[in-house]
């Protein structure tokens, strides 16, 4: 299950994501352009560290955004979206 390298392994950036009714990302708006999510390759939930002051409650999506860029996006419990790479 190889992955193409993800560009720019920096900190996650806030993202504007349009989600489909089921919650999965449908389109991502970056650089002013709206790009469709072509495929959701994997999705998972991380709900952890709830006993600490920095609890995590996120839904992750490993997506392919047109025209073929691979990215990791996640949605916080607050509803805010972020993108990695």
């Amino acid at each position, binding site marked *: 299950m190889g992955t193409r390298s993800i560009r720019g392994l920096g900190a996650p950036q806030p993202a504007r994501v349009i989600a489909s009714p089921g919650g999965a990302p449908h389109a991502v708006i970056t650089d002013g352009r709206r790009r469709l999510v072509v495929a959701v390759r994997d999705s998972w939930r*991380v709900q952890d560290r709830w006993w600490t002051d920095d609890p995590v409650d996120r839904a992750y999506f490993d997506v392919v955004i047109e025209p073929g860029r691979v990215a990791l996006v996640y949605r916080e419990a607050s509803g805010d979206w972020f993108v990695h790479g």
Partner: protein
Amino acid sequence: MASPPYVELHAHSAFSFLDGASLPAEMADRAAELGHPALALTDHDGLCGSLEFAHAAAAAGVRPITGAELTVTTAPIGDSHQGFQKRHLTLLAIDARGYGNLCRLITVAHAHTRDAPDRRAGAPLLPLDALALHHEGLACLSGCARHGLVAAPLAAGRRAEAEAMLRRLVGIFGPDRTWVEIQRPGLRGDRALARALEVLAGHVGVPVVATGDVHAHAPRRAFLQDALVAMRHRLTLDASEEMRRGNRQAVLVPPDDMARRLREHPEAVSETLRLAEMLEFDLTRDMGYRFPDFASGHAGEGADAALARICADEARRRYHDGPERDEALDRLDEELGLIRHHGLSGFFLLHRDILEIAREVALDVRPEGSARRALPPGRGRGSSVGSIVCYLTGLSHIDPVASGLFLGRFLNRDIRSVPDIDLDFPRDVRARLIEEVMRRYGSEHAALVAAFPTFRARMAIREIGAALALPPADIERLARLADGWSSADAVEDEIRRMPGGDDRLRSRRWRALAMLAKEAAGLPRHLSQHSGGMIVSATPLVELVPVVPAAFAGRQICQWDKDSCADAGFVKIDLLGLGMLSAVEDCLDLIARGHGSAPDLSRIGFDDPEVYAEIQDADTVGVFQIESRAQMQSLLQTRPENLDDLTVQVALIRPGPVSGGAVHPYVRHRRARRRDPSFRPPYDHPLLEPVLEETLGVVVFQEQVLEVSMALAGFSAGEAEDLRRAMSRKRSRDAMLRMWERFLAGARERGVPDDVTRTVFAKLIGFSNFGFPKAHSAAFAVLAYQSAWLRRHHPAEFLAALINAQPMGFYPPASLVRDAGRRGVRTLRACIRMSDVHCTVDDGRVRLGLGMVRGLGADAAERLVTEREARGHFDGPADLVARTGLRPEQVAWLARAGALDAFGVPEREILWQAGTLLRPRRVAGGAGEQLPLPIDPSAAPPLPEPDRIDRVIAEYEATGISTGWHLMTLVRPALPAGTLTAEALRDTPHGREVTVAGMVVARQRPATAGGIVFLLIEDETGPVNVIVRPDLYEAHRALVRADPLLVITGRLERRERVVNVLARHIEAARLPARDAIPLEEPDDARVREAVPGAQNFAQGRRGR
């Protein structure tokens, strides 16, 4: 509404210990709420909660499916499994055959869990090869995404291994009974894994089925689930990330949600329905257990005929010709008919068999020539005491015809659960009996009943606190503050009470502690042995319920607790050790030794006015069942006059009647009846009169709960059993609500006004299952009467026997000695020349035994006595050590106990000699023993003699008893002026402000008393009852909980004859300042240490 698209076939309850986070009933109720038509319970390597689940689910309208998740290894059977992985496999029972195989497989998985030399529990493990032997009737699912037999290698990229495992399963179960399990636990990579599993399944030719691997019934329990995983691995939550699930997805959700979650696998989803259809086995119905059909030994004679013959012969022997025999034979006929109707003859013969074994064991265990040998080996209690068949087969020693006792609950016509038969034994008989019964019936047919200790406040705080990485010192302090009776619910309050408590609760970790402890309260922690219950079956037990080896060698435990065993209809035999029975037997022995013969307890009758006079005056220290503080205060008001009254008395002071609001009304009505014998007690409704007449209008006995439901709401016996079951576990709100609806409907049909119904139901709920059956109470009342009789007529022997039987009872030996002293019994300290190992009676005085001396123990004491009897008295400390090999500190304790006074040597010198004398030492390779070089005793340095105060304290320290001064005599000079003695209180009028002081004998805070603490303190003249209100308790917690010497100021309350001091001020009693010898002066701390252990809240007394 469309029928649900999905059935959950893989779910864990809290009986997956330290993994599942919800009780079976919670899972069942939640499944019903969410619209699940069926639910499978698949706990790890066990069926501990499966029957409980099956009943709860059925009651909630959810079809229960039975299964388990097995931990398997691919190592060949018998080989070490080092180097082999542990994997999971899910097995579900299709039919009864499959269920039996499941039990066998689980048993095999546990077979070697106690192989360690110290018998510490290991983890269960099933060799895969064993599946081939017991596969029929089972559906095999390939296991969870993380650890499954097929999924795990596939996830690691080892496709060939995964395929080989799958083919192996198909080889065993066939393609019709093998499924590849598809899960979406919401972890990274599970989508690809699920796809790969589907491909593999298609390739091999087996269907896929979707499962959820549920571990909690509601999201809030998912937090607890994380903590449980950390605890299981003995790690903090922070450090256990790899082991935990990583999210809260493993929670029960509606079937539609699951279908959506698994929408990429529509075939796997629809397969859940098809597979669920196949799994027809219903544990509440199909287990296939039948009572044993016993061969009696007469060829060709069936159980019914054998039982009838034995009883008829016995009846003719025990009853003389005349109306008594006629009544006996009539009742016998009636009972035998009922017994035949229920197919229970074999059951009674089985019990008789057990008693025969008990008789043999008793003869083996009891010394030749002792009076004990003539006694029956044990006593029946429980519902059997009203039965004439039980009497004639030796299960009970109460003649029901003579005592006017009737069948009642036992053998009810419509009964659905098997009658209880409980047998009490003296401790010595019981220990051997359990072994012997196991041996006779064999491991295929007998096993002990399980118990599941639950999370209690203290343990929850410690373990969860550790998982949360909270500071150990704080956690320990919090744990100590939590009482035995604190509910884990109340941890938040306890945290608040700590210094800086409110601040702590601002931190997430501390808040988590409070929340998790509350959620964990009442969840089972692990499987352990129930104290005396065992089940026996004719069908091999191991096909009905899995059996696991016990910590005790030679014993094995079934995986069900007493409630599940009762639900399953097992014959449950409770072999209980009753300290009081040991004491009574010992007492008779001592009497026989002194007087040549012992009284025949079966002939003393139950109507000695002197005995009742003492009982009515609450002069009952040491008397079985009616000696506690609460009982005594009650006796002063209820004044029992006969065995019936005692029977009610024994049952009355228990959580059931107390919570059910029965005690005060009973006392009032009794008083009214005393004044006016024609007094008729009021009833909540006339329909209740026949049921509650004998208890003056209130519910006192356990079976009255069911009888009330039958009389008021028209419940059938079967429905009444449902009520009992609904009240018997950590109560399901939904189940109780259903019961209430039926109760209300039934009562309305009978024209009972709703408000009356509500009142009565509330009382029943308060009473719940916390009462005693009448026949239990009757048997206990008999023992209570017999103890009171012995105490009255043979007080010295009774005292000696009670001390010998410790630990037991409400009072420490020191108090027993004081009480007996007030009744003219003198107690002499242990003596190296005169004492036996145990207490004995010498010319009406009690001589303490050498075994009581601290540091000695029964073995050393035996050696000592044997040596003395063989070769004569010891000359002195040197002689003693040389002939017995006692250690210096043991000699020192004997000296402090005053046991070596006979030597005529000052105690200090004994201690000095004991410290310097050596035991004979073997020289390696030498011809014999090297004799010690005794140091000339006259060379001892001059040391001051301990004075009288020291002697008193030393004696308390060495034996827990003072045969001389009471400790309070030493303390009295320093008490506040005007402090009254217990005796002086007798003449003090009601309402007066008084100050008293004493040694704390008991501390109690009953759950039914709204936070009030009851203290029993004792001074040199007797006991005093103190009541501490909750706010005063809070202000002086440490003092009330732990200080053994208190000064109490408060108001004297005298109501009827009950006297209490309502505390207003509490302080610790201090010793007088001493200007005596500095060396060895007993300081405050030492004195407090010396006070004998009190009865502490719910923990009973700790023996030395």
